[in-house]
C-alpha cells in the first residue's frame, strides 16, 4: 500500500526524542486534557521561590519530594565579596535559607564551594542526566536539554505546584528539528550557532515548540558548548531544546558525584541509548541551517534575534520583511545609538562581561584566556570575568587562567549571575556599551540605558583588547599591540 508522505508520517509509529522523554514522565493522560508530568528534579533559587513557599505555608501543604529539590543562591549574590549588602537581596537570600531549613531542602549557599549559577552547578555536580525532566523558576533551565533532558523554565505559581505535587499539568508541545548541516570553521562557537539560528527564525520563531538540535555540528560540540546552545533555546521562543545523549555526554557524566556505577551505570547507558529520534518519526517543523560558511555573530539590537555576522554592517530597518520588524529595528537602533550601515567591527565598547549561565563554564574561560594570553585589555575598557560557579573558579585557578585575566587587566571575580541582569550589586549605568557573553540584550537588561552586544567569549576577549567589536582572527599578532 502506498500512502502519501505526509499521511505516512502522521501514521508512523516512530517517536522523536522529545516525545520519548515526555511520554516516560506522563503520570496521567486523558483525551483533551493536559498531561500530568512527573518532575525528576526541581531547581530553586532565591528570586522566584519565596512566594511559592508562602503559598504552600498558607495552605498547610508540605514539599512532597525535598530529595528531588536543590536550591542555589545565585541571582542576588555579589561577586566581589561573600556578603549580600543590599537589604532586599539579603532578605530574599535569608528567606531561601529559612525555607530550605524548614523543608529539608539541600542548599548550596554563598560561601559553600558548590555555590554558583544554578544552571552551571546542577550539571557539574551530576544532578542532570539524560531522559530526566527538570524545571526551575528560571527561563534558562533549557540549558539542561544538552543532556537529552526535558528541561524548562516555570513561573512562581508552578514552582509552588511542583513543591506540593512533584508534577505539572502541561499541554503536549509541538516538536521542531533544527538541523545544522555542514561543519563549522574552527573559530565558530556554540554561541555563534545559536545567535545565527535566532537571527534566522526570529525571537519568537520556535514559539510553542520543543527543539531537537541535530547534525554533525552538534555532535562535534563539547557538553559545555551544548549547554550554551540549549541555554538560549528560550530566546528563540522555544519551550525547551534538547540534544540526544552520546559518548560525549557519557564521558562528561561518568564519575560525577552520585552517578551510578557498575551494572546500574550500564543499565542507565542502555536506556539512554534509546533516547534518540526514530528514523520514521515526524517533527511538526524542520529548520535547516548550513553552518559551513558561518562566521562569528554579534547582536546589534535589543532582542537576541537582532544579530548579524561580526564581519557585516548594522542593518537598515528597510531590509526587514514586515512592518513590525521594521518598527522594532527603528526602535532598537535609537536605543542602541547606532546608524544603519556602520561596520559592526567599528562599534566601540567600554565594558566586557564574560560569565553567565550561557558562557560561564570552564571551556568558556579557556576560550577567552586563549585570546587574552600575552595581550592587554585596552585603556578605558573594564573587563569582568565572572566564573559560572565556585567550582569553575577553582578549576580556572588550578589551570592558571586567573593570572591570564588579571595580568591582562581584567577583574577576576566570584561566581554569580552578575551583570547578566541588573539585579545584584554588579550593575552598569547608561550609556555604557557592553559586549556580553550572556543571553539577553534587552533594553536596560544590564542597567538603565545600558547597551548590550551579545557575543561568544572569544569575541568578547578580542573586543577587550581593541576596545571595539573584534573577531579573534582580526587581532594583530601578539607583541605588536
Amino acid at each position, binding site marked *: 500500500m502506498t500512502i502519501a508522505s505526509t499521511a505516512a508520517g502522521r501514521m508512523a509509529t516512530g517517536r522523536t526524542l522529545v516525545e520519548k522523554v515526555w511520554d516516560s514522565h506522563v503520570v496521567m493522560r486523558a483525551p483533551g486534557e493536559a498531561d500530568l508530568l512527573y518532575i525528576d528534579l526541581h531547581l530553586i533559587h532565591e528570586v522566584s521561590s519565596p512566594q511559592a513557599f508562602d503559598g504552600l505555608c498558607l495552605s498547610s501543604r508540605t514539599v512532597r519530594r525535598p530529595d528531588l529539590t536543590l536550591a542555589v543562591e545565585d541571582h542576588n549574590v555579589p561577586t566581589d565579596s561573600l556578603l549580600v549588602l543590599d537589604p532586599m537581596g539579603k532578605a530574599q537570600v535569608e528567606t531561601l535559607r529559612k525555607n530550605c531549613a524548614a523543608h529539608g531542602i*539541600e542548599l548550596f549557599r554563598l560561601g559553600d564551594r558548590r555555590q554558583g549559577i544554578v544552571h552551571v552547578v546542577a550539571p557539574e555536580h551530576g544532578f542532570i542526566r539524560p531522559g530526566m525532566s527538570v524545571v526551575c523558576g528560571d527561563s534558562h533551565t533549557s540549558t539542561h536539554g544538552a543532556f537529552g533532558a526535558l528541561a524548562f523554565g516555570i*513561573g512562581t*505559581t508552578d514552582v509552588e505546584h511542583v513543591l506540593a505535587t512533584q508534577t505539572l*499539568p502541561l499541554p503536549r508541545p509541538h516538536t521542531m528539528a533544527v538541523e545544522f548541516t555542514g561543519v563549522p570553521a574552527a573559530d565558530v562557537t556554540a554561541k555563534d550557532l545559536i545567535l545565527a539560528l535566532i537571527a534566522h527564525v526570529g525571537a519568537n520563531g520556535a514559539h510553542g515548540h520543543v527543539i531537537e538540535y541535530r547534525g554533525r555540528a552538534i555532535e562535534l560540540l563539547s557538553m559545555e558548548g551544548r549547554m550554551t546552545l540549549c541555554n538560549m533555546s528560550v530566546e528563540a521562543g522555544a519551550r525547551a531544546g534538547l540534544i540526544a545523549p552520546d559518548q560525549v555526554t557519557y564521558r562528561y557524566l561518568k564519575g560525577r558525584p552520585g552517578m551510578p556505577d557498575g551494572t546500574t551505570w550500564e543499565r542507565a547507558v542502555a536506556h539512554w541509548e534509546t533516547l534518540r529520534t526514530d528514523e520514521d518519526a515526524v517533527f511538526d517543523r524542520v529548520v535547516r541551517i548550513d553552518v559551513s560558511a558561518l562566521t562569528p555573530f554579534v547582536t546589534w539590537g535589543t532582542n537576541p534575534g537582532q544579530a548579524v555576522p561580526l564581519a557585516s554592517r548594522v542593518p537598515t530597518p528597510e531590509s526587514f520583511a514586515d512592518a513590525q520588524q521594521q518598527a522594532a529595528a527603528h526602535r532598537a537602533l535609537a536605543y542602541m545609538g547606532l546608524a544603519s550601515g556602520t561596520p559592526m567591527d567599528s562599534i566601540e565598547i567600554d565594558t566586557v562581561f564574560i560569565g553567565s549561565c550561557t558562557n560561564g563554564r570552564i571551556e568558556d574561560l579557556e576560550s577567552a584566556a586563549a585570546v587574552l594570553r600575552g595581550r592587554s585589555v585596552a585603556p578605558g575598557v573594564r573587563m569582568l570575568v565572572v566564573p559560572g560557579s565556585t567550582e569553575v573558579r577553582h578549576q580556572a585557578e588550578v589551570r592558571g587562567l586567573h593570572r591570564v585575566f588579571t595580568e591582562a587587566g581584567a577583574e577576576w*571575580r566570584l561566581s554569580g549571575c552578575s551583570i547578566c541582569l541588573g539585579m545584584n550589586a554588579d550593575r552598569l549605568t547608561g550609556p555604557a556599551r557592553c559586549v556580553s557573553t550572556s543571553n*539577553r540584550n534587552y533594553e536596560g537588561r544590564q542597567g*538603565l540605558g545600558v547597551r548590550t552586544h551579545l557575543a561568544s567569549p572569544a569575541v568578547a576577549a578580542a573586543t577587550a583588547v581593541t576596545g571595539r567589536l573584534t573577531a579573534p582572527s582580526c587581532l594583530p599578532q601578539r607583541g605588536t599591540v
Partner: protein
Amino acid sequence: MKPLLEHTGYGVALRRGDVDTDQIIAAEYCKRLTKSGYADVLFAGWRKDPAFVLNRPASSDASILVAGHNFGTGSSREHAVWALRDWGFAVVIASSFGDIFRRNAFKNGLLAVELPTPVVAELADRVDGDPRAKITVDLAGLEVRSGGLRHAFAVEARARQLLLEGLDEIAVTLAQDRAITTYEKSRGDWLPSVPNTPLRPVCPSTAKRRLI
C-alpha cells in the same frame, strides 16, 4: 480564586512587538517577597517618558492592554503578571505571547488572549480613536466583542476550566495522589536524588572579603 466568566473594560494600545518581561518589570524590582504591590514599577523605564501610553490621563482606568506580537517574551518572572494585575489590567490581547508569560498570566486570573494580527490592529485603532470604547472578553463564550467587532479566541481547555470554576490547581492535582505515588514506584534507579549535606566552606583564598 474567584470564578471568572468574562471581563468588560476600556482598552489601551501598546504598539510595540517583542515586549519582554524585563520591560514589564525590571529585575531590580523582583526582590520583593510578596505577590502584590508592584503597580508602581510596571514599565518603570518607559513610564519615565511623559508621552508613554500608560501616562495618558484618558487611559488611567484602562483594564485591557492591547499589545503587539510576542508579548511577555524572555524571563519567567511571574512578577510581570503581578505588576500588570496590580496596575489594574485584567486582560492582555496580543497576536502572540511568550509561552511562560501566558501560562503565568492564566494562573493569576489575567486573561492572555491571542487574536490574529489584523484583529489586534483593529482593536488598537479603536481604543486609540476612542479610549471610552468598551471591550468585552468572554471566557465562557470564547469571544472578544467591541462595537461591531466580534472575534473568537482559543484557550487551553484546562486553564479555561480552572478560571471558570475558580479552582485551586494544586488541590486538583493532589486529588491524583494515588496515580503520582504509583508513578513514583516505577522511576529508574539511575535517576539522581539530592542528599542533605553539611556546608563545604570555600577555601580561604576565595573567602577573602575583597578580591583582586
